[in-house]
């Protein structure tokens, strides 16, 4: 596969085929971890790391796992990758005061990782799975950070600690709550679909 084709796989994972935008996967992470931009960014980064490792492992083992027990095996492999990453990051990056486990918790319950393993990794080569997972992970991180920023601006009236509104204009607290996240997430999905449609020459 040429470099250009691989870049196309990456771009596909980034927005065109990203399950966050096409199937609204990972919405629970969006609701629970976007109350703060830092939390959103770190959750996105750790999800991306887990996606890359688990998708590559699953892709490498796709021929030895019978299809009847595919899902339990994939769940085991994702759990293994997640715990392995947690050990390594806790041991070698001790910059987080209270550990990094709280950023991994939403990854563990996220349907995004299993969804991408089932949707892409079992049908493609190890390297392509890794490239696609990296694209999906980056797309997911950008999505989470965007939601967190919009939630803070529209819901709390703050942009990185600086008040945005003045006078009679007040923030709408609904945006800081779960329904607001769904609304913002929906708007981002629509925007991404519009951009992806234009690039493909569609509507």
């Amino acid at each position: 596969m040429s470099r250009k084709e691989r870049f196309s796989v990456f771009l596909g994972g980034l927005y065109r085929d990203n399950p966050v935008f096409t199937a609204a996967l990972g919405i629970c992470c969006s609701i629970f971890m976007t109350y703060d931009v830092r939390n959103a960014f770190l959750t996105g980064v750790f999800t991306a790391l887990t996606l890359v490792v688990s998708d590559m492992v699953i892709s490498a083992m796709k021929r030895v796992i019978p299809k009847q027990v595919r899902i339990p095996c994939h769940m085991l492999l994702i759990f293994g990758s997640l715990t392995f990453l947690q050990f390594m990051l806790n041991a070698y990056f001790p910059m987080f005061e209270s550990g990094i486990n709280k950023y991994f918790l939403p990854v563990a319950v996220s349907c995004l990782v299993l969804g991408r393993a089932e949707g892409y990794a079992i049908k493609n080569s190890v390297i392509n799975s890794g490239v696609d997972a990296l694209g999906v992970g980056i797309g997911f991180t950008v999505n989470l950070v965007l939601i967190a920023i919009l939630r803070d601006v529209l819901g709390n009236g703050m942009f990185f600690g600086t008040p945005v509104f003045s006078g009679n204009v007040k923030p709408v607290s609904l945006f800081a709550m779960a329904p607001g996240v769904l609304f913002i997430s929906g708007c981002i999905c629509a925007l991404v679909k519009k951009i992806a449609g234009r690039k493909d020459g569609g509507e």
Partner: protein
Amino acid sequence: MNRKTIAACILALGSVFLLVFLVLVISHMIVADRLNEHLTSVPQEERMAMVPGTETIEVPEDMEYADGVTCVSLLYDENGNETGCVIDTVSTGSDGDVIVRVAFDDEDTIAALDVIEHAGLPTNLGYKAALPEFTDQFIGASSITAYSGSVSGRLIKFIDDADYSCAGVYSCVAAAFTQLKEMRLSENEQTTEGGTE
């Protein structure tokens, strides 16, 4: 499914389980020392800044911790005189653990209090327990009366909608006071034993 397929499925599941288990055990063995080191390590600057005049910090290794206490650091000035101590505590708040760091000065009154971690989301519950309007009520307190919810005779006002997390912070402060009391008792016992000898 025939027998051969069932056997293949069981074998695949077992192999994957064994593989994951082995990888995790081996990786844990490799990083165990570093993990323990990180868990017991102390971000010294942050703790030292909580009590003014502190130059050095020490974490006694043989100290027994009271319930809810995770770490105790002793603070000293440039002459080696004790300026106070910092006690890290954990309790349960809204949606998860509340981690609170309590700094006592040399007169055993609370000099500073930081809510390090809480699981309360903004706009609904627990985050309000970390706001200064709640935590500042503890500053200057030298005793706690758990059953009446007061410190140094002053009643602590819990924040509306964040009662559970406020109770968690209060429990943390109570645990810190218990630890401090045990430390002073143990020091007195050592002094008495030294005097008797």
